[in-house]
């Protein structure tokens, strides 16, 4: 998030503030993972307190801590300021006899800080943003081996703080990639939703509409996290671009060809369902690449699982994908979903019937999809849940 104020960066404090702001670290609540790491560090080094202290322009923010406050609110005169100024590991053997810190409120006390160890933490750009610090009420020699270990932990913390930012940014990118425009296709209702288990995932849905035509994709990239999300973004872009001019089978073949090397290198693969409606009738053409979770629930309540035979993209085996056709009559609903939906029920194929029931007992595609979304949001420990539904309006 950049604001106009950050454009005018003059002092070191302003730079720190700007870097921390862009890393999204200042706004965060103290993190439980970093708190646990601080507890471990304090135990390992036999210290009373350990903390990650981030330095804003004039104030200090405790990102994580163990054993009580190791920072006072003002940056000026703080240990953190001194640690950043030293640019390297700062070890104060006895703070009560050090004129720089003796009057500090966390030192000036019979049970106050004596031994202090602090090391600056840097953003990926090299800017010092705070310190990893530990303290003890008793002074003792802090050996060379221990100093090396502190440096290693600091390097790891820097990586973690940076990757947290990457994850957040990847989630933003993924969110931005979701289709924004709702599909306006007379006589049809098209709805999709995605509830990721983590900040980012490899599942996505996409659709586009042009007059008289509709294209939709639901895909699941093997694995989770940033890597899977990146492959997902590529798959989405390739299919989106290709589907404007080509039919379903040609689109999927092209996507497979373009992704082959990427997927081979990562031992990854992609299951997907891609469909297009081009004729003005209820005909929907589709390709099924190893994604066996698509149902059609008919107006009279019957349901069928769409036939599927082709392999996922990226296995390097049997590289061909065939076109199939399904007809949607008035009142019929097609619903396609990621395997995370199975876990909302008993995880077995009987879950397909549960999904069909939800479609039967709701009046619109939006209602059916929102029931599944709510279940995903309330489920503990659920996998990514992505759902897309197309309903041909009419008698029901």
């Amino acid at each position, binding site marked *: 998030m950049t604001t106009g104020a950050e454009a005018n960066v003059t002092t070191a404090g302003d730079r720190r503030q700007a870097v921390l702001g862009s890393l999204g670290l200042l706004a965060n609540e103290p993190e439980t993972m970093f708190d646990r790491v601080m507890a471990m560090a304090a135990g390992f080094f036999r210290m009373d307190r350990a903390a990650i202290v981030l330095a804003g322009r004039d104030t200090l923010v405790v990102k994580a801590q163990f054993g009580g406050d190791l920072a006072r609110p003002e940056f000026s005169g703080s240990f953190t300021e001194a640690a950043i100024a030293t640019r390297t590991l700062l070890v104060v053997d006895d703070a009560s006899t050090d004129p720089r810190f003796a009057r500090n409120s966390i030192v000036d006390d019979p049970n106050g800080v004596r031994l202090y160890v602090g090391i600056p933490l840097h953003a990926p750009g090299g800017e010092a943003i705070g310190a990893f610090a530990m303290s003890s009420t008793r002074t003792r020699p802090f050996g060379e081996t221990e100093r090396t270990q502190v440096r290693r932990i600091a390097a790891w913390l820097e990586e973690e703080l940076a990757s947290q930012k990457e994850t957040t940014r990847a989630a933003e990118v993924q969110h931005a990639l979701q289709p924004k425009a709702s599909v306006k296709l007379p006589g049809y209702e098209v709805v999709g939703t995605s509830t990721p288990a983590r900040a980012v995932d490899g599942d996505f849905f996409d659709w586009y509409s042009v007059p008289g035509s509709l294209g939709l994709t639901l895909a699941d990239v093997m694995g989770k996290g940033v890597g899977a999300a990146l492959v997902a973004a590529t798959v989405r872009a390739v299919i989106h671009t290709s589907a404007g001019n080509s039919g379903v089978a040609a689109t999927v073949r092209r996507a497979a060809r373009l992704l082959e090397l990427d997927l081979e290198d990562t031992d990854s693969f992609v299951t997907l369902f891609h469909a297009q409606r081009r004729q003005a009738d209820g005909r929907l053409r589709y390709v099924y690449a*190893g994604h066996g979770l698509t149902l059609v629930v008919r107006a009279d309540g019957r349901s069928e699982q769409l036939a*599927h035979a082709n392999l996922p993209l990226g296995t390097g*085996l049997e590289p061909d994908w065939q076109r199939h056709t399904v007809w949607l009559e008035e009142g019929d609903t097609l619903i396609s979903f990621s395997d995370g939906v199975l876990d909302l029920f008993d995880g077995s194929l009987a879950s397909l019937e549960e999904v069909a029931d939800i479609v039967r007992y709701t009046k619109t595609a939006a209602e059916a999809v929102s029931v599944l979304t709510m279940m995903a949001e309330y489920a503990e420990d659920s996998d990514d849940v992505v759902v897309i539904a197309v309903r041909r309006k009419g008698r029901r």
Partner: protein
Amino acid sequence: MKFETSPIGDTIAAIRGAGRLNMVSASALRETVSEALSTGRTRIVVDFSGIDFVDSSGLGALIGCLKSARQAGGDLRIAQPTAQVTMVLQLSNLDRVLKSYNSTEEAYGE
């Protein structure tokens, strides 16, 4: 998860594991299979009787191992998959290339 390899004849390696085949255990399976391939045992059978769960990373490892085995002139087959494993293979259509058998002996008992 630890995988154990038992030789059958001169060319078959039966690989057995227990627990969940997921992101954590996938690399162990890859190593075990490539070890077997390097000793000339190119006909791999993975005994799934003790593996009650496989996720997409596990499937990725199986596909990778299948390809390595085929490149070495052999194959990779599956014995005694549990219901969850069978379902995952069917849904992804990977059951067409990763064939399942009732026992390790049957897998290569052609």
